């Protein structure tokens, strides 16, 4: 196993407020790591640091071998951050959404087909407009777009939010399937019991630090 995320004493600031206060975190390829902690603990900020969106003020950090202090923008194209929104175009069909993402990275149609198969998107669902999908189907489409984009690390913020019990079960199965295909997942979730069943490791964030 190789290390894909390595943070040491990372401090990050959001506006005037400290978002992370000395976080240490190591994630190996193929892991599903659950970040847990109360609201405002810094889970989302940690995901944004790993996505190269939030700069680090102190400490050292590397994601996929890229230095967060000097080259964080280069990380963005290699990780996928999914928050509460799915990043879909609601007036496009599922297939048109995936083809759009594919064209931004020059992915082939077979890569799109693989993503659809992994996320169990069949031909009928592919032709449905995103605006007509259920919350769970939209989430599947968003995850498929991460595969199409060849995101190596999936950073998921409350991925179970808005899904019913069946949708959550399906999401967990899909995430396991994606990890089996080579992805690494770091997720923040308040659904502690469910996420514990999914995660291979748990990291607690409190007061902006990881324990």
């Amino acid at each position, binding site marked *: 196993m190789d290390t894909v995320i390595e943070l040491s004493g990372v401090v990050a600031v959001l506006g005037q407020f400290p978002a992370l206060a000395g976080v240490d975190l190591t994630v190996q390829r193929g892991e599903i790591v659950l970040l847990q902690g109360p609201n405002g603990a810094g889970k989302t900020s940690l995901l944004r640091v790993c996505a190269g969106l939030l700069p680090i003020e102190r400490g050292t950090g590397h994601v996929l071998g890229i230095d967060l202090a000097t080259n964080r923008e280069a990380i963005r194209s290699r990780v996928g951050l999914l928050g509460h929104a799915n990043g879909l175009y609601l007036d496009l069909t599922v297939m048109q959404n995936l083809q759009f993402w594919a064209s931004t990275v020059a992915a082939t149609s077979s890569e799109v087909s693989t993503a659809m198969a992994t996320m169990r998107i069949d031909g009928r669902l592919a032709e449905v*407009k995103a605006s007509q999908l259920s919350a769970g189907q939209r989430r599947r489409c968003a995850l498929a777009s991460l595969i199409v984009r060849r995101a190596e690390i999936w950073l998921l913020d409350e991925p179970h939010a808005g899904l019913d019990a069946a949708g959550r079960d399906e999401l967990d199965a899909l995430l396991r399937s994606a990890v089996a295909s080579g992805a690494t997942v770091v997720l923040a979730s308040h659904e502690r019991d469910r996420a514990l069943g999914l995660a291979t490791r748990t990291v607690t964030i409190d007061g902006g630090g990881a324990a």
Partner: protein
Amino acid sequence: MSGAGINKRRIAVAVARKDLTIEWNSRILVNQVAPFAAIVMVLFAFALDNDGILLRVAPGLVWLATLFSMLVVVQRSFTVESADGALDALRVAGVDMGAIFVGKAIALMVQLFVLELMLVATAVVLYGVEMTLAGFCEAIVTLVVATIGLGSVGTLYGGLAAGARGRETLLPLLLLPAVAPVLIGATRATEAAFGSGGTTVSEGWPWIGLLLVFAVLFSAAGTVAFGPLVDE
């Protein structure tokens, strides 16, 4: 062309195709914007109710209707980006923002050009405008150059207003003053093309030069500034 240049061109084409596909799927331009623009032209005709005056002011009415309609098209262009966080997803994914600007501007230009053709045709039918062949050619050049300027500035200000509170009212406040040079230049050039008020075709070309300068400036400025503005 370098690898980065090819990437940017590919992304710009993908974004333009995506925006035009969204328009094709939703038919907002055909079903809402074009009828709105036509109604504006008809209302002007009712309000002025004089063939001589209508012939004189037809070029200005065409471009005023274009600007009002453009507000709707630009709002729509960025509403589809924010409805489910798509523009944020592109930004987070590190997709080149300059290429996104170019793609969105091209899609906007295509829609505006179709709209302007319809408005000129409406002016010909409704106001009795007549054009010579040279006037027709000048009108087409005016439409093309003015559309490049409007598409660029519309995309730039649309992106700026997209993340702001009260963006529906903010966009007209930002955009309409900025496109005043296009309104003036395109109206004068179209007057020359239509021969309104005794103008000749040759009088329009200096105004087309002004439109060209505006288009080049805002295309370049938009490509550079769009990313930082959307990030803010």
